[in-house]
Structure formats: C-alpha cells, structure tokens
C-alpha cells in the first residue's frame, strides 16, 4: 500500500467492481438475517400446528403416575445403596459437574434413567 495508489480507480479493478460487490455483500447480510427473522416469526405458529393442545393436558395424568412409580423405585435404589455400599462413592456416570456423590444423587440419576422409557415395549 502506498498513498500514490490512492484514488477512485481502485474501486473498479478489472473483474472486480467494489461498489457493486459491497451492495451485494450488504444484501446478503440483510438477506440472511431477514430469513432468520422470518423463520423466527413463523416457527411458533408452526409449532402450534404440529403439537395439538389437547394432547398436553391428556398426557399429564399418566406421566405423573408413571413418574411417581419411578420416584419410588429411585428412592428404593438409593436406600439400598446407602445400606449396602458403605463406601458411598461409587460413580456410575459422568454426567454431573462437580464432585458430589450421595445416594440421593444416584437416586436422581436412576430417576432420569427410568424416564428414558427403556426401549419401548419389552419391559412393559
């Protein structure tokens, strides 16, 4: 770069029109963000279409009772461990951050485990 090269001729080099390019670039930036804005506007409507409301109210009760059973199982597991694994610091997963290991934490995980629904059908 040197100032001797300063001038408008720099903006229109062979095969490269800087002004036209800048307009197009600005257009792409606007275009991209505009499409995102449109998508964001439409998404909630789309989501409302795909998930009919009544389902959610219907699902509450069975899931709750399901959850209750699982919580009971989890508590049972936790107590069992507390009684039979006096060490108490077995790690069975690496999902938690930090280093707390109590039977209750294990219980929480058990609960999470159950909610995986365990492969759909054999377990009935």
């Amino acid at each position: 770069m040197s100032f001797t090269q300063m001038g408008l001729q720099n903006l229109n080099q062979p095969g490269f029109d800087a002004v036209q390019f800048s307009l197009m670039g600005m257009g792409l930036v606007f275009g991209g963000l505009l499409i995102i804005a449109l998508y964001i506007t439409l998404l909630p409507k789309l989501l409302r279409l795909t998930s009919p409301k009544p389902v959610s109210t219907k699902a509450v009760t069975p899931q709750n009772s399901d959850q209750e059973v699982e919580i009971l199982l989890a508590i049972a597991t936790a107590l069992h461990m507390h009684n039979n694994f006096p060490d108490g610091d077995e790690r069975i997963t690496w999902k938690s951050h930090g280093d707390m290991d109590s039977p209750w934490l294990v219980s929480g995980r058990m609960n999470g485990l159950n909610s995986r629904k365990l492969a759909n059908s054999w377990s009935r």
Partner: protein
Amino acid sequence: MDLLSFYNNSGLAHLEWINLIMIAVGVIFIYLAVTKDYEPLLLVPIGFGVIVGNIPPIEGMPLSVYAEGSVFSYIYLGVMKGIYPPLIFLGIGAMTDFSTMLSNPKLILLGAAAQVGVFLTFIGSLFLGFTPQQAGAIGIIGGADGPTAIFLSSMLAPELLGPIAIAAYSYMALVPVIQPPIMYLFTTKKERCIHMAPPRQVSKKEKIIFPIVAFLICALIAPGSMTLLGMLFFGNLLKESMVTERLANTARNSLIDIVTILLGFSVGASTQAQTFLTGQSILIFVLGAASFVVATTGGILFAKLMNLFLKEKINPLLGAAGVSAVPDSARVVHMIGLKEDPSNFLLMHAMAPNVAGVIGSAIAAGVLWSALGTF
C-alpha cells in the same frame, strides 16, 4: 463478481440430496439425545458436527475437516493422530470407581467374554473382503467403546474412521434399544431374579495399588494397550491417591469436557456425504450391529456357563454389561432386573463387568494393533 458468482459461491448451489440425508441424520442424533437422553454428551456434538460437515464448502477455501489449513482440520488432528481418545480415558479413569470390581473379581471375566464380539466381527469383516487392518478396526466396534474404536481406527484404517466412529457411538447410544431383547431371549425369569450379595468393603490401599498393578499386567501382556490403559489407570491413580485430588478433578471435568466437545464435533464433521455414504459404510454399520449382538450374547452365555460351576450364582443379566458402553449397559441391566423384581438392585454389581469390559476392549485393541499394525 455478479449475482451468479455469488450464487455459485454459496452453499445452496452445491447442496446435493445426499448432504440433505446426512443433515437429517445429524438432526435425528440431536433429537434422540434431547428427547430420549441417549448418550447426549456424544450425540449432540456429533449430530451438530454432521450438520456442519455437510454444508458444501467453497472450492479452494479452507473450510472442511479435510481441507489443509482449515480450523476444523486442526481440531480433527486430535482425532487423526489418536490424541483425544487417551485424554478421554484419562478423564474416565479419574471418575471410575473400581471398588465393585475389586470386591467381586469373578465378575471381571464377564467383561472378557463380551469381547468375543470383537474377534468374530473381525473374522466376518475379513470374510467380506476388508483388509486385515480394516477388519481389525471394524471388529473393535464390538468393544462398545467409542474412544477405543477411534484410537484403533486412526492407527489401523484411518480411511474408515468416520463410519467406524459413528457406528460405535450410535450403537452405544442405542444400547437401551439393542440389549433388552437379547437379554430376555437368553435368560429365564428365574435367572433374571437372582439377587447378588452386597460386596465387601474395599480398603484405600487396595484401591491405590490396583491401577499400578493392573496397568503392569495389561501393558506387559499387550504393550499395544499401553497408550489407552496407561492413561486410564493414570487417571484412576490421580483419583485414588487422595493427594492429587485437584488434578483428578480437572481431568474428569474441564479436560474431558474440552476433549469431548472437540472430538465429537470433528468426528461428526468428517462425515461428508460424498465420501461417507458408501456401500462400505453401510456394511460397517451392519457388522457393528452384529458385533453388539454377539458381544451381549457372549457375556450372558458366559455368565450362565460360570453358574454351572459356582455355588453362589451370578445373575446372567450382568453378562450383558460386559460389553462396556459405560454406564448405559449397566443401567439397562439394572432396569431389567428392577422390572422383574422391584427389590433386585443390580446397578453396582453391573459396574464390575462394565469397567472390566473397557479394560478388555483396550487389551483387544492392543492385540489387534500390534499384530496388524506391523503386518
């Protein structure tokens, strides 16, 4: 520099329908992770990586993991050079408690039995026409251990690394789907109800000495397992020595997290449809599935075999946990046991064959590597 050249430089112009298929696969991975909680720490990074990897890059620009000098290629180096898997093993070692295994050494053998999947798949792959190196790398999918599979592939058959890694992680995530039917098929209700005696307490000393001796045993038998198991047992020593708690803590938190992010993402991004969607890949997926089935079966049947000789019977469900896939296969065992008899708690017992399976797979990888790598 007109509109056309802009369009030609865009991703839209080069997007093929096979890229769209792969992007859909990536979305499904993320969906499974979010809604089913299947191995989310792996499926989310891999899934997003698959999406990124299937955006058509611009010719001549360093964008993809395969383009020299691209940022993604630098991240992918840790996969190609086999650096990430041992670091993940370091973190796993620093979070693994070997107590149950130490208190019930019989269960270790279940972790050995499940490795039969590795060698049968190796033979199957050879039969189908893969080279011995490729066959070894495919076989290790049956080890059900992502880092081990990636490590061995990078050493023996880097050209298959993508499909092997994706197959290994997919099936690990699908353990709760794949294993239960096999477990029901090969066990009776009575067997599934067998209770295990609570394990004895393990002394601090035993826990500190264990990683050192276990490393020496494994590394002297199969030096090829030195890299993975050296790091695994090093991490475990950091944890058990009690005097290096802060190092163990970093190894099992920041360090393993950083490596998991980079490994998952870049493995995912290496699955460009144009090179990934081949007959070979599909074959690898089929072989991988077979490998998982064989390994699970092997573990269960070996437990039943041991029961012929043992007074205190082993619950044969524990055999299924021998495939590794820590800790998911142990969880599946626990849940099946619990459904059968709500007072049958197998989780801790299943951790023994589960971690033994990790060691077993690493030994198998070492054996395959040393025999085939210097072939």
